């Protein structure tokens, strides 16, 4: 049986700051606050190529993780490394496909794919392979575990919604 442990955060969000920090994520945070769901806040952690120890710590101390896959998510190797780390240690991962088709994530095609290819330049083959594996995995969670999320996010236009 899983040993009982206490978590510091309910949710660890992984996202591309430029795409959604000011919009979608801030709405999500507001809603979570009112529902009593705690979410890790990365303000103040310095961005760099390698993933910061403080982030790894936060991932480990969060009960579940939400990965918001937006158009430019894969353009940041920081995001991709974070994703690999999340998949390594989290049982419950909920992907949200934000104006992105899950199959583009799986196959690294479309705009999402273009951004990804850019990030892959000057990376070792191993590193690339790790990222691809991770994207295939989250891309598949959609069909497998969270079909309804996939449906509702594809069929609505967020711009109109807010």
């Amino acid at each position, binding site marked *: 049986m*899983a040993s009982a442990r206490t978590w510091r955060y309910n949710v660890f969000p992984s996202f591309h700051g430029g795409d959604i920090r000011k919009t979608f994520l801030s709405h999500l945070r507001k809603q979570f606050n009112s529902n009593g769901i705690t979410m890790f806040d990365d303000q103040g952690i310095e961005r760099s190529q390698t993933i910061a120890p403080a982030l790894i710590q936060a991932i480990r101390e969060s009960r579940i993780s939400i990965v918001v896959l937006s158009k430019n998510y894969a353009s940041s190797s920081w995001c991709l490394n974070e994703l690999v780390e999340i998949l390594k240690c989290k049982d419950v991962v909920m992907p949200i496909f934000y104006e992105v088709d899950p199959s583009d994530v799986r196959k690294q095609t479309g705009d999402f794919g273009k951004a990804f290819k850019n990030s892959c330049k000057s990376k070792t083959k191993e590193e690339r392979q790790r990222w691809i594996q991770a994207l295939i995995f989250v891309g598949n969670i959609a069909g497998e575990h969270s*079909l309804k999320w996939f449906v509702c996010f594809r069929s609505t236009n967020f711009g109109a919604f807010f």
Partner: protein
Amino acid sequence: MIEKIAKDVSDKLNATPSKDFDAFVGLEFHIRELSSLLYLDYEQVRIVGICGPAGIGKTTIARALQSLLSSNFQRSCFMENVRGSLNIGLDEYGLKLDLQERLLSKIMNQKGMRIEHLGTIRDRLHDQKVLIILDDVNDLDLYALADQTTWFGPGSRIIVTTEDNELLQKHDINNVYHVDFPSRKEALEIFCRCAFRQSSAPDTILKLAERVTELCGNLPLGLCVIGSSLHGKTEDEWEILIRRLEISLDRDNEAQLRVGYDSLHENEQALFLSIAVFFNYKDRQLVMAMLLDSNLDVEYGLRTLANKSLIHISRNEKIVMHNLLQHVGRQAIQRQEPWKRHILIDADEICNVLENDTVSIPRSKLNHIVKIHRSYILCSRFLTFVIFFQDARIVSGISFDISRIGEVFLSERAFKRLCNLQFLRVFKTGYDEKNRVRIPENMEFPPRLRLLQWEAYPRRSLSLKLNLEYLVELDMEGSLLEKLWDGTQVSYHKFISLMMLYIFSLYSDVSTLTSGLHSAPCKSQEDVFVKFMVFKETSGSVKCYKSRRIGSESLPEFSRASFLLFLSA
């Protein structure tokens, strides 16, 4: 949209690996064995059986599985007590519809769902990855709820628990986990968890604990009941119980459960028997209302029974007694001397009581008869009922299974004699249309009736006098009933309020109740647990359809249906 995400996240957070099952000895092993049978990576639908004798822990294993696995599925539901809660008044098709309605309501999380045909389950679920647990099923349940794997979306898992391996074979369920009895070591640990609330016994009492475990056999339920009954007891009391266990000649598993019952105080025994016969799977509040002014401290009694592992109060406040313990209760009633019985369950005995007008015999003479004919009494039904009549006044409950009796003509005065009868249940355990109970024109119901449940009641109206003053639950499923009373018509609001009066008097005053009923939705109604009849218009004629739980959500539905409720002036 954002709200929906927050809700989904919240649901996921609630699905934490629970600690509820940590005390279940050997669970890890069961789960490991089952996970290879469930084969969660497999994309097709899979039905898995859990098979084993009553009391071995099938339901607990299934519950643990649900709590561990449900987050991997889009929807999940646990259908408890499937076999025990059948609505007997319906024919086979109706039963199947009823079962599917319940499953769909539960899994869609939408109360009171109505379906019109048996294909609905497939229509709604074929594209969903679901986890469904059917606890304690029979043949019909399986046909109704899990006949074909194509009903459910890819990756779905259906888990079925039963005592009957042949049933699984018949339905081609080949992935079956047979739950084994615990080893001696595990048995001791189960016992210790109940007796000491820890996994091993203190050294001073270890020898006694081992001795008791040995006497108990290795049925987990029995170990729990005996262990809990010894919690916090002195060594002397242990010795007494050990002697009692040694004396009980038959070493079958029920023997230990019987010892658990025997070691209760008289009041708790009475409560135990009422639950076993009338109130299993009923809401706690309802039972409290039923037993109000019964001289029992019901709240305390329930707590004691729960502490002794004889009942279990579920998360939604239902009182659940294991069917093996229910059986022990019924046996305990049969072991009582006939003239001391407060609850009657034997169909022949009840026929005698309800059919005959007998002259009562003075007690002094009665004792005489008893002395002289002691040897006869055991075998002579005649004497049994003569003696029984002497104390018809002590009878508080009748549970009358009419499926195996010949015709019975109720006597006009039958219920008059049973002036303290509070709980009356008449039911069939099989479906047939034959009416076996003939009711005279002028019969009166007992004045203190609290529970009146009469499946397939044979008349069109309750023309008999029924005192509403004490009535808590009226349940006439599948009966011919078209109206309740001849006389003045009252609105159904008034009717419900009368029915609920006694439940509400427990915690709030009646005025809030009656006003609340007219303006749904109303918070207080959610606490109301009265079964109520819905008359559904079918092809011009009005039929009593089924009972529904009253809650704010179902109220609009009520008002759309047509009602014919009458109350005598």
